[in-house]
């Protein structure tokens, strides 16, 4: 199996800034496991570069970050990266994790029909929160950690050779644990108030395609 991972991480607003920095942890994990990383960051997170890199390098795993909708995901400056019925065929034979809103409700199933091996994504909006004082240090924000760490776990598990089902289960488990913490007496007031949003992410995250698919 091709040990190449492609990651799109646009950076043009506060939300993409957080995702940009949190992807760094996934990149570090992949490098430790000797994967070749195609890091499509900032202006490189565009449709032309993505299509070109996928065609040339045939990555086994595609990690898409950014704003999206049921039938598309965007890259830098909200420009469309992949759209159902337009270029979702480029995801054929790959495992995809899309950290984006609503995408698993339509683009997920169509990409599976077009040959993607497995697709993990969200059928509703993807929520996360942060303290305003942490905007300049996204990785230190404890609230964002509760949301983005379990989300990263999908990729970490896949990189470690686990199946799509195992990666999905791992992420679900940590979201559930984090949610239970957030509603416990050990949680801060803020954590307690944002628990419903993490719960929504947990419920809307789905796995499509071959549950046994793995990249190593």
């Amino acid at each position, binding site marked *: 199996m091709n040990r190449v991972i492609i990651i799109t991480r646009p950076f043009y607003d506060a939300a993409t800034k957080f995702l940009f920095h949190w992807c760094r942890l996934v990149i570090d994990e992949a490098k430790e496991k000797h994967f070749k990383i195609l890091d499509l960051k900032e202006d490189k997170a565009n449709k032309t570069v993505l299509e070109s890199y996928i065609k040339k390098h045939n990555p086994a795993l595609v990690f898409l970050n950014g704003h999206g909708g049921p039938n598309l995901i965007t890259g830098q400056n909200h420009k469309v990266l992949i759209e159902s019925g337009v270029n979702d065929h480029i995801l054929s034979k790959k495992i995809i994790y899309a950290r984006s809103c609503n995408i698993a409700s339509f683009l997920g199933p169509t990409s599976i029909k077009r040959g993607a091996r497995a697709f993990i994504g969200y059928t509703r*909006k993807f929520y996360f929160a942060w303290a305003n004082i942490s905007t300049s240090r996204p990785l230190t924000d404890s609230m964002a950690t509760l949301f983005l760490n379990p989300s990263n776990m999908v990729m970490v598990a896949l990189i470690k050779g686990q199946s799509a089902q195992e990666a999905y289960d791992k992420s679900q488990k940590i979201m559930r644990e984090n949610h239970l913490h957030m509603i416990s007496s050990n949680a801060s007031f803020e954590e307690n108030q944002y628990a419903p949003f993490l719960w929504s992410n947990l419920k809307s995250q789905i796995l499509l395609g071959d549950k046994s698919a793995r990249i190593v």
Partner: protein
Amino acid sequence: MKNKKVVKNNQKYSKVARDLVYERIFILPNDYTLSIGADEYDKEELLKGIKEGNEIGNEIIDLQLDYLRDMAAGAFYNE
């Protein structure tokens, strides 16, 4: 036309439900931001959305009511 749309959306939920969610959002901390899709919202913007019955307001109401139903059903402790 905008006002008509707001009135129609507000009729989707009972006043009790809307007020309940409004109060739940009212106690959110003032110094946090919530990312929802392509936008970020502070507490005041969420409250405004709920009051106006716009898309984001209705989304928050849906989410919160869904959450409360799951809480009542004991879903938090199921595997």
